[in-house]
């Protein structure tokens, strides 16, 4: 079965974006050669990107026009969008999840291939956590207290125990944290 892995840059006070959509200026506090290498290394394990509507639409608009190794990856990899409304924004190799959420995610996980990654998409992330579909959470903790913004982990929800797999300190001051969702939390 394929893993579902969450990957986000998060501020010390728990935000993955500022007050306005796509307000990601704080990424500058951690972005650099090390994180770029980390992203490219991680990309080798990605078979599918799973998005919520807002993140999908923003990513589609941005990456479709970009060039370079990360853009090539983003534009060619399979992308699946979870949304109750019809998605109209086109993007190469993308489609919308159109059946029951739980069944559709189970089907996606059971397909052969590389792992499934979720970027941004905070509501989808919370929904996946609630249904115990998440296998791993990777966070790059940005050294900033943003003060206001959009929280990555939506509240209230059930608590989830995590096992720390790895920490890495970046020269920029960021820290990458890799957690496995604890075995007792996983769905049978």
């Amino acid at each position: 079965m394929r893993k579902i892995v969450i990957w986000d840059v998060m501020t010390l006070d728990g935000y993955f974006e500022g007050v306005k959509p796509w307000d990601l200026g704080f990424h500058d506090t951690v972005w650099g050669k090390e994180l770029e290498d980390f992203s490219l290394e991680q990309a080798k394990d990605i078979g599918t990107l799973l998005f919520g509507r807002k993140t999908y639409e923003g990513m589609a608009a941005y990456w479709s026009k970009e060039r370079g190794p990360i853009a090539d990856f983003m534009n060619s990899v399979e992308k699946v969008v979870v949304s109750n409304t019809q998605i109209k924004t086109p993007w190469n190799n993308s489609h919308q999840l159109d059946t029951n959420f739980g069944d559709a995610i189970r089907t996606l996980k059971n397909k052969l291939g590389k792992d499934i990654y979720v970027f941004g998409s905070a509501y989808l992330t919370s929904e996946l956590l609630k249904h115990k579909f998440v296998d791993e959470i990777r966070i790059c903790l940005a050294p900033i207290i943003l003060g206001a913004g959009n929280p990555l982990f939506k509240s209230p929800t059930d608590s989830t125990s995590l096992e720390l797999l790895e920490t890495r300190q970046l020269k920029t001051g960021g820290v990458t944290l890799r957690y496995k969702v604890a075995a007792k939390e996983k769905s049978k």
Partner: protein
Amino acid sequence: MRKIIVQSFITLDGVMQSPGGPHEDPTGGFTYGGWAVSYFDESMMKFVGESAAKPFALLLGRRTYEIFAAHWPYVNEKHKENPKENALDDPFAEALNI
């Protein structure tokens, strides 16, 4: 000039309420009190011990002050009542009660 250092236990989603036990701070119907206890291992105690080893003053808001004041002076008595759950040689208790 002395530094002000903020030290806190915090969950990945930013919760710092009631880390030590369910009765510490159930404000707002909080039912996860004591969530930090299972992570109090040797390295955690070492970290707490080291941060309490140097001379320091503690600056607290009212709620945390009241929780601390009701707990830390009685650690020795609590140890006598229930030695398994209440350690006597707690470095933080020692530093706080001097």
